[in-house]
């Protein structure tokens, strides 16, 4: 049913067939295209743009922490008025919108949206997604999110200011803070649209991966990227409805007075006492029931991509493919029963705290297994120290830090002290930026030739990597120390408290590093854009890699493959002693060198399974 003959497609879509037009996909990003590759690139360009927006907001936060109440250059005049001084409510908006943009418009859509769309059909040998129109809608639905976030900036009160976690009662009562007025409503609507977009993607990915694999592509021959995307899609399908429902409950608390989250008798900002009957902790349970799985939604695809890139750059099979798959699944499974670790100090039943503590400590186990297997993958390999590889190594190295800091916080008594301090901020930046974003940077360099038929510049890529790595660690490593020193997060002016005064110089150092890192991203953008025109031309398989995507032209035409690929083996057969080349594409029929070929690699049988499955 999948992968019909490409000739039919090419005939129907004459405008793509010029193989020399390397920017064929790029040229369509202005259109409502249903081609998964175009949609992937649309997502990629949009998220890169949003990365810059989110970064600018973060620099605003850093400015205030380094030079409290001083006039902020550039952005201050743009937004803050009054000569650019950041007011406390403006500060709450800055960190709220920084996190919201980064999570809902960068990390989630860049992984599932950009790479998921571009790679899934190519890597499993399908001609497109199962539901192309739904797929296109999933991209276009992030524009309402962007627009609603945009509207919320311009509302009276000046942007939502309740953090990305938006805990009620603060977020439920408009009178509670300037940032809880209308802006909070638009924030909730924006997040709902982001959820709709993710959900459409999720259904599509699950269906496509289950039904549309090429002949021979058994489940355990799928690249780990696909496993990561598949498990992420499942997480989204099960977790997102809860957030959407919670969001609507909060909206109706605000607009209809339903009081799901509002207890009675609260006197907020001298308004009349609330009528109530609700429970604010309910929101925390619902929110984290989504948002803990969501942090893995923001990681698992990157884990898969890094596995693929490492194997290809080291010319070596993945170490422990099945343990890698099982640990992905274990992380996802455990990920559903750890949400309470965000609520250790919330006053929920202490017995619940213990349960969540044990599951949280245990989730470090599959994470550790993955780290060991990545190191095992490099072990004995012949790595080429290119930009892709460097970013992948950074991914591992940074993920180790994030995983280990997780153990401190998983220990409930320790979390009592470090909860809501900068230690938490350090932790999640090491996993979300240090791991995921470095994985994404690697992925951009790695799959760029497939998208645009040219390579990105190695020199600029390495410079970007080096500056980002140094800036990143300079900004975020000291946050662990700030956390241990007891500096709470979300403080517009921590230095009001004498025991934090001496942390100012360290914060200034961190802000300088953050600016360095911010500037470095312009290198990435420039490299990304200029390589469209000046990059070294790349053929089908510039990395001599095994995956199906490297069989298709660069960029692939509509329908992806010139002939329907048949898969004979897993994607990681690098450096087999049976071959002269050090790679072995998944589509290459086996040469019978050894007298007894493995039954699993028999093409006939393999295509049998696949047709049985589809």
């Amino acid at each position, binding site marked *: 049913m999948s992968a019909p003959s490409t000739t039919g497609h090419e005939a129907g879509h004459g405008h793509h067939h010029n193989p020399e037009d390397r920017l064929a996909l790029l040229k369509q990003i202005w259109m409502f295209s249903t081609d998964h590759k175009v949609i992937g690139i649309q997502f990629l360009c949009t998220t890169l743009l949003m990365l810059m927006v989110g970064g600018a907001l973060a620099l605003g936060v850093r400015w205030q922490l380094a030079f409290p109440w001083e006039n902020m250059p550039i952005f201050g005049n743009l937004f803050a008025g009054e000569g650019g001084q950041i007011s406390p409510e403006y500060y709450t908006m800055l960190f709220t919108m920084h996190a919201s943009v980064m999570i809902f418009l960068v990390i989630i859509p860049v992984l599932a949206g950009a790479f998921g769309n571009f790679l899934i059909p190519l890597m499993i040998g399908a001609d497109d997604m199962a539901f192309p129109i739904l797929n296109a809608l999933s991209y276009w639905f992030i524009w309402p999110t962007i627009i609603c976030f945009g509207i919320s900036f311009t509302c009276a009160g000046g942007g939502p200011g309740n953090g990305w976690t938006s805990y009620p009662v603060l977020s439920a009562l408009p009178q509670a803070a300037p940032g809880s007025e209308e802006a909070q409503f638009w924030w909730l609507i924006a997040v709902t649209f982001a959820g709709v977009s993710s959900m459409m993607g999720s259904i599509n990915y699950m269906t496509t991966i289950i039904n549309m694999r090429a002949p021979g592509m058994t489940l355990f021959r799928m690249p780990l990227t696909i496993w990561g995307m598949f498990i992420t899609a499942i997480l989204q399908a099960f977790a997102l409805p809860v957030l959407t429902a919670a969001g609507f409950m909060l909206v109706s608390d605000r607009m209809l007075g339903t009081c799901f989250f509002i207890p009675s008798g609260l006197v907020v900002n001298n308004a009349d006492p609330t009528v109530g009957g609700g429970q604010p902790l309910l929101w925390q349970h619902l929110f984290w029931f989504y948002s803990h799985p969501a942090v893995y939604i923001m990681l698992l695809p990157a884990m898969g991509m890094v596995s693929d890139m490492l194997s290809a750059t080291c*010319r070596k099979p993945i170490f*422990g493919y099945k343990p890698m798959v099982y640990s992905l699944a274990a992380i996802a499974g455990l990920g559903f029963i750890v949400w309470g670790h965000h609520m250790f100090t919330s006053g929920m039943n202490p017995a619940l705290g213990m349960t969540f503590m044990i599951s949280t400590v245990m989730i470090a186990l599959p994470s550790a297994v993955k780290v060991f297997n990545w190191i095992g993958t*490099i072990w004995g390999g012949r790595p080429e120290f290119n930009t892709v590889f*460097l970013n992948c190594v950074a991914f591992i190295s940074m993920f180790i830090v994030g995983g280990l800091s997780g153990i401190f916080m998983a*220990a409930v008594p320790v979390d009592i002290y470090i909860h809501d301090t900068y230690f938490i901020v350090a932790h999640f930046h090491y996993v979300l930026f240090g791991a995921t974003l470095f994985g994404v940077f690697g992925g951009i360099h790695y799959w760029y030739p497939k998208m645009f038929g040219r390579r990105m510049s190695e020199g600029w890529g390495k410079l970007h990597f080096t500056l980002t790595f140094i800036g990143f660690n300079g900004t975020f*490593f000291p946050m*662990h120390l700030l956390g241990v*020193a007891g500096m709470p997060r979300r403080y517009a002016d921590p230095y009001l408290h004498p025991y934090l005064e001496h942390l100012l110089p360290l914060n200034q150092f961190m802000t300088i590093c953050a600016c360095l890192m911010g500037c470095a991203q312009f290198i990435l953008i420039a490299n990304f854009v200029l390589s469209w025109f000046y990059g070294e031309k790349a053929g089908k398989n510039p990395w001599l890699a095994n995956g199906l995507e490297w069989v298709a032209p660069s960029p692939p035409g509509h329908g992806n493959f010139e002939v329907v690929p048949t898969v004979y083996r897993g994607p990681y057969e690098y450096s087999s002693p049976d071959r002269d080349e*050090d790679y072995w594409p998944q589509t290459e029929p086996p040469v019978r060198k050894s007298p007894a070929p493995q039954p699993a690699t028999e093409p006939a049988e393999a295509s049998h399974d696949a047709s049985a499955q589809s």
Partner: protein
Amino acid sequence: MKWFWCLFFAFWPILAIAVCAVAPAYGWWFPSAAASPLGQRIDDLFYMILIITTITFVGTQAGLAYVLFTGARRTDPDVDQKAWFSHGSHQLEVIWSVVPAFVLLFIALYQLDVWADYRVKDMFPREKMSQLLEDKLHQKRTKHDSLALAEVTARQFEWRIRYPGFDEDGNLLPLMPDPQPTDLYTVNDLHLPVRVPVMINLKSQDVQHSFFLPELRVKQDAVPGLVIPVWFEAKSQQSYALLCAELCGWGHYKMKAQFVAESDEAFLEYLRELQRQQFFDGVAEAAESAEDDE
């Protein structure tokens, strides 16, 4: 170039550890030694985890550096060797799953006590708290009266504190769930006895806040609609920082208050002084000072 990158990845963990090692000297570490026995146990747990994670950190980063160096060596021009064609090792998988599993399980079980002592109501040091109330503060109480000495209500952006007052004979009354005419009030200034477990009831009047005593390693959210008992024990007679750790609006950062730990007598005297001020009617001063003279 490849050797540069190997060194690059080997170097940063060393730098990170060096920074941590010098951090206490610059004050980038705990604000002070834990000022409460439970806080001390939290710190001990922190240091235990720090040791385990540091070993893991060094081990994994060293492993990473090792595979980078040996990998780079393989690409030298004089080495003509394919990569190792290995799909993994069952034995290694078992080892590196089982060993961390035991370490993690140990961490999980080892900390349960501290958590239980801190939060499980049946484990609260009730004996000591009622001794304090009855023997030291001479509170007129029955068994059912609250063990809490004060009610702390967070609101945007301050801490309101309610103490029980005194009866006509000058005996300290128990803290009632609802405000009483005899109650005493302050804002942002919490006084409690030192070197003995004390308990407060934590509430919020508007949005969520969090009661944070960094030096004592105490943190508890104040959740609208809930009354949450929190106990702690200050080791020394001094004033500690009290601040809010849960975003509660634009003024979150300025919910600055103090917690003063003082002797039982000083605490009672503090309450009496509060009472004098609060019930001062503007004319009684003369009479009162006459009383004092007697």
